[in-house]
């Protein structure tokens, strides 16, 4: 009995009654994974099929009559191009603002000796629990005269309290007090300490919050939906909503009028390709950065 218990991983002997259990678990997990995967495969396969195969509902697993016409249509669609360009702008500039502001606040709030630290931290975390609501925020945007400008997208939500707590916790846990004391003895000011030590040592958490903020910007539609009505400022998600959910094809924006008719028949194919084109950037990057995303959840769970 005791002899059969070796070290875990690899060397462990499996008894017969456990073998069935392991088998069942592996099967069940496999089944769940397939259930997650199937809709994704279905969308991607449809997007690579021919318009006829899609409208006849022939696609079940793999592409039928492989074609790239859906993608061709997407790239000829002017609104998608505008939306893509705007979303990249909002994501890059918005994330820069987010990370800069979060680092500023997190560094100061991570210092245990800072008078008023608890009060300031509370001011930030309280925003997670209570906000003015739709209309007071809307009136504020109006009073600031930033409705229908890029600032309505970039400024509200510049600091997420959750990300701030994650960053502050990380700085507190990774940068030893001794380092600060030693630096202070050498005459290092708080600002110098931030640039010379805190920033380089916080690369991991900055990667985490950069990803979180960037994904949020990429996927957001609410602020644009409420605060923008100038079509040239719309992010991709707003155009996606129009095309994918409200079924309104902006036929005037098709560059080649001859294609209009063909386009109508391709409406469904276009949708599948559009889903792929809009989501692919994130899903392609994500597996390589998975460990950073997961790290964020771990640090966040330490407190809050």
């Amino acid at each position: 009995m005791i002899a059969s218990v070796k070290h875990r991983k690899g060397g462990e002997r499996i008894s017969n009654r456990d073998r069935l259990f392991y088998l069942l678990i592996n099967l069940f997990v496999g089944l769940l994974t397939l259930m997650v995967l199937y809709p994704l495969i279905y969308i991607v396969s449809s997007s690579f099929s021919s318009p006829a195969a899609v409208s006849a509902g022939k696609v079940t697993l793999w592409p039928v009559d492989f074609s790239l016409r859906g993608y061709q249509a997407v790239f000829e669609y002017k609104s998608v191009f505008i939306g893509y360009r705007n979303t990249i702008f909002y994501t890059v500039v918005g994330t820069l603002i987010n990370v800069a502001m979060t680092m500023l606040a997190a560094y100061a709030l991570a210092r245990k000796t800072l008078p008023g630290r608890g009060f300031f931290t509370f001011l930030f975390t309280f925003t997670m629990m209570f906000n003015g609501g739709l209309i007071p925020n809307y009136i504020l945007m109006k009073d600031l005269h930033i409705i229908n400008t890029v600032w309505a997208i970039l400024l509200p939500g510049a600091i997420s309290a959750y990300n701030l707590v994650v960053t502050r916790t990380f700085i507190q846990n990774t940068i030893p007090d001794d380092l600060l004391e030693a630096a202070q003895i050498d005459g290092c000011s708080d600002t110098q300490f931030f640039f010379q030590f805190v920033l380089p040592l916080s690369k991991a958490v900055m990667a985490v919050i950069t990803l979180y903020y960037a994904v949020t910007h990429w996927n957001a539609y609410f602020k644009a939906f409420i605060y923008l009505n100038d079509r040239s400022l719309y992010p991709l998600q707003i155009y996606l909503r129009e095309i994918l959910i409200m079924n309104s094809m902006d036929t005037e924006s098709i560059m080649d009028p001859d294609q209009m008719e063909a386009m109508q028949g391709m409406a469904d194919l276009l949708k599948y390709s559009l889903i792929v084109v809009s989501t692919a950037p994130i899903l392609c990057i994500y597996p390589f950065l998975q460990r950073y995303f997961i790290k964020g959840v771990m640090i966040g769970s330490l407190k809050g």
Partner: protein
Amino acid sequence: MHSKRHTLSRRIARHWQLYLFLLLPLIYLLIFHYYPMTGVQIAFKKYSARLGIWGSPWVGLKNIQKFFNSVRFTTIVGNTLRLSLYSLIAGFPLPVIFALMLGVMRNERYKKVVQTITYMPHFISVVVLVSMILQIFNPILGIYGKAYSALFGTAAPDLLGSPAALPHIYVWSGIWQSFGWDSIIYVAALAAVSPELHEAAQIDGASRFQRVLHVDLPAILPTATIMLILRTGKVMSIGFEKIFLLQNDLNLTTSEVISTYVYKVSLKASVPDFSYSTAIDLFNSVINLFLICTVNFISGRISETSLW
């Protein structure tokens, strides 16, 4: 007394650079979070754009009473509660069970692939998620429609236009999207279990299933309790984005929730009532705040883990 104040001001002075770091974030916080909170007063006023937030006349509790007496009050609050309680009850256990199963798996490569795939839907935007639902559940063209007519020989019912089906679609698409990601925190808790506990259980002749029940499960139970308590605190908040996109005229009897109703009586209405919608928002926020505080208090008592 005097010297104490003296040292405090010296401590503040010593940290002046840190306050400079905080300056910009605090200005942001005051403008974009705390200033709008003063706007909440229009819930008790008859707001007019001309007179502004501060100049509009007070009307007391009239707006909130209007909501309470509205014929739609019970439907809207009921829909909000139904969707969130259903999400909680159906969605809470699965990540826990999934993490336990991942913990049992011995093939590390297989496990990595499973994790990568199941975490993936977390990154899909709500717009794309809802349009995937619309495509897949299309009664004529979607895979659901095709499968239904192949199985039963009749045309498939339109699930998206059905008030009875909407809560299921809302909740299960949410579970599809998040059960993998939500399991991360439990996987982390499992990784902290000492291998010696497992070895000891094995010496006692415990099967792997028994070890799941008596070693793994107790190890994640504290984390699960906290997560459950925290989620209970959010039971009155159904976010606007997803449910709004799933709404159509046919399913409105179960899909109209507080956040969408607030939007419809204000920004979308032909005669916008800013005060009325703010009153509804406030009613919702106050309940949420109360729930979170209560739940946080309980959580602090039980597990010494609290939000602040």
